[in-house]
């Protein structure tokens, strides 16, 4: 019952995004801009793999920050959040929005990952399995933390700059682990060497989703 309604909310988010292009166009432009800034600043230098792994996740983090808060802020701004509250229970809303955010950030980071591999020649990934696994699990972690934070921010009076401020300390363990795993992939490590990193990413996501699920009710019904 909850999952069916979550599914419908998920679909609604997609159709709505597809029609309004609230987030997607701006996000793609954001990716293009930041990547070209990185390319310009590299110039003829040859930065280390460590630095490039770091910048990859900086790009992903900030594009997530500019895109993921839309899901709740748009509902609040257009006055539809109360409509939604009078239609469904809060857990369906949370699950629907969580999956929408996950797919959005996953698509985004795959695009970022591909263009990073294509345009930055110095960035050489040797273990693609670790690289894509990190992108996948990193997106899940980003989505898990930002969904509840977006719900908090949607209720605040000043929304613009609040999201990265609230998200950074919470997402830092995730980002550091992702950067570490990306470094491993450039060093040509075996899958078994990155298992610890993946365990951290998975447990972060699980803990975040479970906690958010418990407290989301308070935020949504406020």
């Amino acid at each position: 019952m909850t999952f069916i309604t979550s599914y419908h909310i998920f679909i609604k988010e997609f159709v709505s995004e597809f029609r309004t292009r609230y987030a997607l166009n701006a996000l793609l432009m954001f990716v293009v801009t930041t990547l070209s800034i990185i390319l310009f600043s590299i110039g003829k230098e040859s930065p280390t793999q460590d630095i490039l792994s770091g910048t990859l996740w900086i790009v992903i983090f900030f594009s997530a920050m500019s895109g993921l808060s839309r899901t709740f802020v748009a509902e609040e701004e257009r006055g539809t959040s109360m409509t939604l509250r009078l239609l469904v229970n809060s857990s369906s809303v949370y699950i629907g929005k969580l999956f929408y955010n996950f797919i959005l950030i996953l698509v985004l980071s795959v695009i970022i990952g591909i263009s990073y591999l294509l345009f930055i020649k110095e960035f050489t990934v040797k273990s693609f399995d670790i690289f894509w696994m990190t992108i996948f699990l990193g997106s899940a972690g980003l989505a898990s933390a930002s969904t509840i934070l977006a719900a908090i921010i949607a209720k605040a009076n000043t929304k613009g700059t609040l999201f990265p401020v609230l998200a950074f300390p919470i997402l830092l363990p995730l980002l550091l682990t992702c950067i570490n795993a990306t470094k491993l992939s450039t060093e040509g490590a075996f899958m078994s060497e990155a298992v610890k990193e993946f365990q951290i990413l998975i447990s972060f996501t699980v803990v975040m989703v479970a906690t958010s699920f418990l407290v989301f009710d308070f935020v949504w019904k406020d």
Partner: protein
Amino acid sequence: MKMWLKISVSVWITGIIIAGIAFPMVRGPHTWYEFPFIPGLEEKARNIIFHVPISWATVVAFIMSMYYGSMYLRKKDMDYDLRSVSSASLGLLLCVLATLTGAVWAKFNWGSFWNWDPRQTSIFILLLIYGAYFVLRSAIDEEERRATLSSVYSIIAGVTVPFFIFVMPRIMSGLHPGSLGDEQGKGPVLEFKMATNMLMVFFASLIGFTVLYFWMYTLKVRLMRIERHVQQITETE
């Protein structure tokens, strides 16, 4: 707090400050007031009596703030929110102190004020969490909503803290005793096994700072209750 308790806390802390600063450090201590000399740390070892208890109190303040935040969510009583903020504001103060005492120690022991050691990074993140908590509070006008959202935020932030304990040491080599990059194995603190008299002063300080935190906390809560009451009276007139 009772008067006798206040006086004894004051005397207690004064004693610790005197002992921590003034007890001489000599090779082969003979009397009860002489601390042993630790190679590599020398006189700088005194900081352990202040830095570690303050860091401990920071964590206590954070846990208290989180606890009262969750109590607010359960009971919806504004008094719990007041306690949560009081503890958080003290925690912010203690966190700044812990960072500063740590940075000074790092400068003279490791060469620079900031080394991105795992524990330095963790306290920095705790500082960021406190900062974000107060930024969030200032961004919400309605009191009940402010209380709810900041409680939720402190819970969300609280559950990520254990990750630092596991994540940080994996990512960066540490300089603190007991961390992975520490060449001498266990590091000075665990290695030399603080002499009994120093250990006693250290634990006395740990207790002293914890009680001091609770004293400051009750004062802060009373002050905020009065402020809120005064505000209410002036608004209704």
